């Protein structure tokens, strides 16, 4: 069942076309990876899908709702964990999660139950009453994802979730993402090809705002005639450049 449908989605900023006629379908429950070098249009695509930026032309549907006309309906169903850690640093982890529960109008009992679920799923038990500014980068990202998941969204956007993390923190965050995989549709943007290979069901390769390839990692490798994903990615991106 299709959860997200992009229909010639385009975003232009003066002379720059950040996203150029992107058409794509993403299935419910999929963990879908958007790959591309800097400036490929990944973050702009996420911003349009999460209603943060209005497309110049085209449209997209999430659970049947248009990003142009049904913003409020979409906002009730999606969540985003932005590239930078978007948390209230002076508050504790628990206070951050309670704030998000309040914003989604959850009653106290439901909120507490959900907070406990996320605390366990994302390994936050030991830091619940610590101020976020005192946590490591890896923990902050986990808190950021927990905040995004508070309203049990049907779609989660993860924009470069492991950027700047060390190997251990990255591995722990992968485990946390794997733990929630399948419960909801996840769109993940990343620079790290091993991350995409490890976690994503399907991938889309973007270059200069356009879609270069889409499919499973095996399909991407086959399309490029390469045995590993990194080589396939480099070849596909270079071919477009040429």
């Amino acid at each position, binding site marked *: 069942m299709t959860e997200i449908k992009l229909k010639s989605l385009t975003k232009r900023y003066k002379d720059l076309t950040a996203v150029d006629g992107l058409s794509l379908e993403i299935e419910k429950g999929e963990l879908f990876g958007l790959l591309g070098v800097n400036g490929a249009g990944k973050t702009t695509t996420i911003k349009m899908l999460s209603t943060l930026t209005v497309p110049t032309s085209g449209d997209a549907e999430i659970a049947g709702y248009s990003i142009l006309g049904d913003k409020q309906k979409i906002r009730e169903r999606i969540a*985003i964990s*932005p*590239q930078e850690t978007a948390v*209230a640093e002076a508050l504790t982890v628990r206070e951050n999660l309670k*704030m*998000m529960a*309040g*914003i989604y109008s959850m009653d106290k009992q439901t909120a507490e139950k959900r907070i406990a679920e996320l605390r366990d799923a994302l390994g936050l038990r030991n830091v619940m009453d610590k101020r976020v500014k005192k946590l490591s980068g890896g923990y902050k990202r986990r808190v950021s994802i927990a905040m*995004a998941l508070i309203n049990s969204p049907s779609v989660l956007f993860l924009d470069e979730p492991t950027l700047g993390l060390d190997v251990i923190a990255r591995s722990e965050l992968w485990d946390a993402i794997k733990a929630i995989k399948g419960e909801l549709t996840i769109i993940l943007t990343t620079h790290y090809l091993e991350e995409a290979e490890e976690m994503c069901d399907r991938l889309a390769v973007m270059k200069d705002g356009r879609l270069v390839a889409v499919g499973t990692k095996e399909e991407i490798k086959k399309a490029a005639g390469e045995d590993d994903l990194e080589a396939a990615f480099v070849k596909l991106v270079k071919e477009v450049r040429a």
Partner: protein
Amino acid sequence: MRWIAFTKRTAKEIILDPLTIAFGIGMPVAVLLLLSAINSGIPAGHGPDNFKIDQLTPGINVFAMSFLTLMGGLLLSKDRGSSLLQRLFTTPLTAVDYIIGYVLPLLPIALLQSVVCYAFALILGLEFTVNILWAILLSLLPALLFTALGLLLGTILNEKQVGGICGALITNLTAWTSGAWFSVDLVGGAFKTVCQILPFYHAVEMLKAVLHGDFQGVFAEGHLWIVLAYTVVICVLSVILFTSKMREK
């Protein structure tokens, strides 16, 4: 009641910042004590009227409120820079929820500023009358003006710029043009005209009038109306700019 969750968070951020409280409440008290001490050293009849405690207190009260602009502006600009707002813009929170969330927690701080200011004035010899309570109540209007100004500047400027503009420009502008430190009549001319165009002088004068039980004086020279007009215009402008920033995001 989504705004409650956001308002609670903003209030916590303000309370947890000790510098905010120190500057917002401690500094005006220190200024009040200093100027009163200077005044007590001047022989009766030789010092400026402005330094008398019943004239000084409303001016210091308004000056203290200029720090609300700094607090509100810094909080909002910091949020904008941290991408927390980007996350929140994808939630069902509306522009009105945000405005309430930033403005409401600063009003109790403003009330506290006024209460502390008048409490110290009483210790320093201000006569207690019920008019003090009216003055504290009326001080909420300039408090709203300064808070809205903070929201406006926090919406269009980054954290560094807000620090400079609110921390230096607005506090100094308030101090110089409000008549808190010296009578604007002493300078007169173009300076007085500028003071009369800006709202700060009118805010001080209306509070002085209320403190002296001169309720008609609140309307003299259009004091109340000018402060009210500035407050409404800046509030509306803040909402429009904030909403447009939300769309722009």
